[in-house]
């Protein structure tokens, strides 16, 4: 072998192999003992040597001739930073027409007052959104239940469209709704402006109704989904599930529900410790059970795909995109630097701007740590203010204890808001962090499948990325 120089990489052991991962997130599966040989410059495997050179793990020159390519690829991996904030969440109201047992948004009764955005607030917020330099702007309407405020949705969209005649950005809209009360008027607005509806479906009726606190919830949601599909088109309605404690026992039934309802994907989403969900009695136990649930559900989804049914799991797909493609993802929870502020800003019904959806949920419990300023404040004072500058010191996992030398760092992210809410400080302590444990377990499980069952799972995983 020629004399070579090492390039930056890390390694871990999974399924009896050494898994080497470089700064780009490119992965190489090698026999146990390979890293020692690489470091000792005693490689005796010609094929491995060539793979290491070709995949930027070692270089035959001190300065690799393809360093510019390597740098361009690294920049592409972080390209979500180039355009600044693209996702703008408008929390229209806390009013809601359901009683979800794990409500994370501290929703209030449907007839509550003083908890909704006024037209003046919407106008100020939309103008503030356009201060973001991003060429793509997504307005996402949340609550409570935002469909209870159709007039403010219409006003916000029409105002954005009017301003955009000068701004010429790519605008898109998402309405996060439980689909209980999608009026004809609201659906016509959605149709006119191509609004995507993101609804919540927790599984079969027995799970959904119990989670949502109403006996007719499943029936109403399914009727709403059907109505929205008829007016907007099938592809304009997507669904999310939240894994309540009850749901943990039903991974297959939940997947079957989604398949039978005509969805082609599912996001197996763990509970977040906000709002009512923070009252969960035993988080450690829940977390352990969630990881088991996730693996069982993913295995069942792989089986479905083997039967010829295209159906993908969204969290795994995000991780696979990071592993198998040169591209970044828009998923804010797995970004470094963190998605907070960089990729998302929240305009709340209370007239304030928050760093993330979770930040405004904390505020409902009296914690205003991530309240960045009033919607009437200057854009620069909000996104370059002291609070954001302080977060900026700790929002890159490349520079965090426990993360910086983690082999799977490239597939993970940093989340100061979650660290603050679960561990009491924004920096976080990885050995006791559930997010760390969950992400590690899921990422390592996916890698183990790629090692142990390559021929079986890789065609399926690749189909999810198309």
């Amino acid at each position, binding site marked *: 072998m020629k004399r070579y*120089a*090492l*390039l*930056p*990489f*890390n*390694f871990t052991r999974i399924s009896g192999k050494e898994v080497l991962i470089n*700064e780009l997130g490119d992965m190489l599966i090698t026999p146990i003992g390979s*890293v*020692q040989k690489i*470091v000792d410059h005693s490689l005796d495997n010609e094929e491995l040597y060539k793979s290491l050179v070709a995949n930027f793990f070692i*270089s035959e020159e*001190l*300065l*690799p001739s393809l*360093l*510019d390519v*390597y*740098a*361009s690829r*690294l*920049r592409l991996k*972080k390209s979500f930073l180039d355009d600044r904030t693209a996702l703008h969440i408008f929390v229209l109201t806390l009013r809601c027409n359901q009683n979800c047992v794990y409500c994370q948004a501290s929703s209030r009764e449907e007839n509550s007052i003083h908890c909704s955005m006024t037209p003046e607030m919407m106008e100020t917020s939309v103008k503030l959104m356009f201060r973001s330099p991003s060429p793509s702007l997504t307005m996402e309407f949340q609550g409570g239940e935002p469909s209870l405020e159709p007039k403010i949705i219409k006003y916000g969209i029409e105002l954005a469209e009017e301003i955009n005649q000068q701004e010429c950005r790519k605008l898109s809209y998402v309405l996060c709704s439980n689909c209980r009360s999608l009026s004809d008027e609201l659906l016509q607005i959605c149709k006119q402006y191509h609004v995507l509806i993101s609804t919540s479906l927790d599984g079969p009726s027995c799970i959904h109704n119990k989670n949502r606190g109403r006996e007719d919830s499943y029936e109403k949601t399914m009727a709403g989904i059907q109505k929205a599909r008829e007016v907007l088109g099938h592809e304009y309605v997507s669904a999310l599930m939240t894994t309540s404690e009850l749901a943990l026992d039903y991974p297959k039934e939940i997947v079957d529900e989604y398949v039978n309802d005509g969805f082609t994907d599912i996001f197996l989403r763990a509970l977040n410790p906000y709002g009512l969900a923070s009252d969960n009695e035993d988080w450690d136990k829940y977390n352990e059970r969630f990881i088991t649930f996730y693996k069982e559900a993913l295995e069942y989804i792989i089986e479905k795909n083997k039967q010829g049914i295209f159906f993908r799991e969204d969290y795994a797909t995000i991780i696979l995109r990071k592993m198998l493609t040169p591209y970044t993802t828009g998923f804010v929870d797995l970004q470094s630097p963190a998605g907070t502020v960089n990729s998302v800003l929240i305009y709340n019904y209370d007239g304030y701007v928050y760093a993330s959806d979770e930040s405004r949920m904390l505020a409902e419990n009296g914690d205003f740590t991530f309240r960045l300023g009033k919607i009437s404040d200057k854009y620069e004072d909000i996104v370059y203010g002291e609070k954001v500058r302080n977060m900026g010191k700790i929002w890159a996992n490349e520079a965090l*204890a*426990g993360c910086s*030398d983690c082999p799977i760092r490239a597939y993970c992210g940093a989340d100061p808001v979650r660290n603050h809410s679960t561990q009491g400080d924004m920096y976080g*302590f*990885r*050995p*006791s962090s559930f997010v760390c444990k969950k992400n590690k377990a899921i990422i390592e499980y996916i890698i183990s499948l790629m090692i142990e069952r390559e021929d079986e799972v890789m065609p399926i995983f690749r189909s999810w990325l198309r």
Partner: protein
Amino acid sequence: MTLQIDRNIYSDNCISKVVYWLSNQYAISRYLEGKKELLVIEGACDEESFRKSFFEKLNDYKLREIIDAETKDIRTILYAKAFGDFDDITEEEITE
């Protein structure tokens, strides 16, 4: 239980990283005596498996430390090229 570690072989950096990951489960006190470091671990039940696991982690961190040391400069250049305006960095400037 007590572990004795030769600081000629394993750096403070490597030991600290292993201790960091174990500090959620065990109380670990560190004492430096010349070039030997003593670690007193409270809470470890199976001494043999703890020792084996500890030194496995330590060896991994030592390998990572060697890789980091050898690739520190190229990593800096890589990040500068990716995110800065330093397109004209040459090999001569690195090897100076």
